[in-house]
């Protein structure tokens, strides 16, 4: 058998439990383990590596679902959507949708939204480093340029909205000594929450936004020009802009 064929049989067995026998034909039985068990060691090892990785990415979902359920879900997800790139940090984007479609979780769809928040944190952490904002040049922008001015969010900025209290659920699962720790029993699950996650240097931040701020940052993310922002947010604009700049939610500006 050629090497490509051997690898095909093997890779199929790793991501499909029912295909073990075809790969076992390629392997010697010896000692205390037969060929199928030896192939099984590799299936378990690959699934173990990816489960540990998903657990590190989705620690709050893991706590919400319980270790056993999470491991079984991870096993199933890995078989359905195995990695296709050597960059492990890219893997796991589809886990939230997988949970949302999971038959056992149809009454707990908020858990999928918590997974989206955890993926957003992962994305923000892995985003490119960017120099701190310099807004001193803003004063030199003339009226004609202002009409074409666009504000820019940090590359790490992730805006999420959910029909559930995902920010508080996330906080409830942080270590006991974390400052904003909330008790899970005390929170009202059914409330719309808008969350911003971003990275500043080596720190990840996550805050709850009010409706206007969320709309404002979303409009910026969609590259709305300054006059459009002024028209939409009217008298609120100066305060929205000042807060966003002060908090580091706006990285820079460009004139198109």
């Amino acid at each position, binding site marked *: *058998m*050629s*090497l*490509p064929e*051997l*690898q*095909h049989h*093997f*890779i199929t067995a*790793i*991501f499909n439990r029912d295909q073990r026998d075809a790969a076992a*034909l*390629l*392997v*010697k039985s*010896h*000692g*205390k*383990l037969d*060929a199928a*068990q*030896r*192939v099984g*060691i*590799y299936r378990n*090892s*690959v699934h173990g*590596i*990816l489960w540990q*990785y998903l657990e590190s990415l989705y620690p709050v979902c893991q706590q919400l679902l319980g270790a056993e359920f999470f491991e079984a879900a991870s096993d199933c997800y890995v078989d359905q959507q*195995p*990695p*296709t*790139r*050597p*960059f*492990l*940090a890219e893997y796991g984007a589809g886990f939230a949708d997988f949970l949302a479609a999971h038959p056992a979780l149809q009454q707990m769809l908020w858990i999928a939204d918590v997974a989206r928040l955890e993926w957003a944190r992962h994305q923000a*952490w*892995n*985003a*490119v*480093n960017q120099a701190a904002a310099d807004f001193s040049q803003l004063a030199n922008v003339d009226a004609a340029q202002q009409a074409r001015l666009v504000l820019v969010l940090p590359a790490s900025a992730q805006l999420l909205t959910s029909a559930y209290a995902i920010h508080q659920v996330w906080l409830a699962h942080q270590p006991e000594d974390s400052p904003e720790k909330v008790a899970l029993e005390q929170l009202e699950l059914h409330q719309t929450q808008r969350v911003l996650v971003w*990275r500043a*240097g*080596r720190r990840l931040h996550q805050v709850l936004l009010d409706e206007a701020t969320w709309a404002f940052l979303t409009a910026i993310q969609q590259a709305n020009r300054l006059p459009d922002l002024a028209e939409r947010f009217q008298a609120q604009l100066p305060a929205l802009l000042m807060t966003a700049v002060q908090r580091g939610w706006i990285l820079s500006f460009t004139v198109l």
Partner: protein
Amino acid sequence: MSHPVKGCGIGLRFQHIDTIVDSNQPIPWLEILTDNYLLPGSVQQDYLFEIAEHYPLTFHGVGMSLGSTDPLDTEYVSRVKALVERVNPAWVSDHLCWTSAHGVVTHDLIPLPYTEETIRHVSQRISQVQDSLERRLVIENVSSYLQYQQSAMSEWDFLCAVVEAADCDILLDVNNIYVSACNHDFDPLAYLNAIPVQRVREIHLAGYEDRGTHLLDTHGYPVSDAVWALYAQAIQRFGAVPTLIEWDNNVPELPVLLAEAAKAAEVQARVLA
């Protein structure tokens, strides 16, 4: 600039990065898992560049998939190359195995069948990577839990033929030799004695887990007594080869890792005295 790699170092793990960055630790050298630093412009690379200013470094990867019959992932190789050019590690290593096939990536180390066809294929791939990186590659023997029906030679004959054909160097994992020797019932000394001395650039030590039916290379325990004994024999044969402690699961506090590295240095001193 590149600092010389000598003595006994440890694998750099996320848990210890802040400690290592914040305080000057007495660590002879550090090995990074290349794959964790391949996002251009990321905070991870930021940490790496800081660490590279203070410690000698080597790069150790899993994503090259040297034995795969898929086309070489040129994006992966070029990201490694960019990082190599920026940091200039003492050397770059990956494993003698395959990790991906038919477009699917396992992120695990799967053994190859030991045949003439495989020798030709994998040595050609190593040459291709060496040409791209414009550097010699150092390749590591992996632990294995199976033997293919079609394998026609011993693992050490296979390894020797590959490094000869590709003209690359060897990262000899003494724990992996021990684990595979127990799992497949061969003499680990026969393995050591077959390896060309001048090609061994680095030695790995790690802890395995005894599963009853087989030894599993989990990198989650101290180095076993049997592996320390085999290591002493390796040092006897290969001399003062830079040695690295790998610990990936249940990662202990930094002092525990450093004590393990110091133990390797003691073995070297004792054997070579």
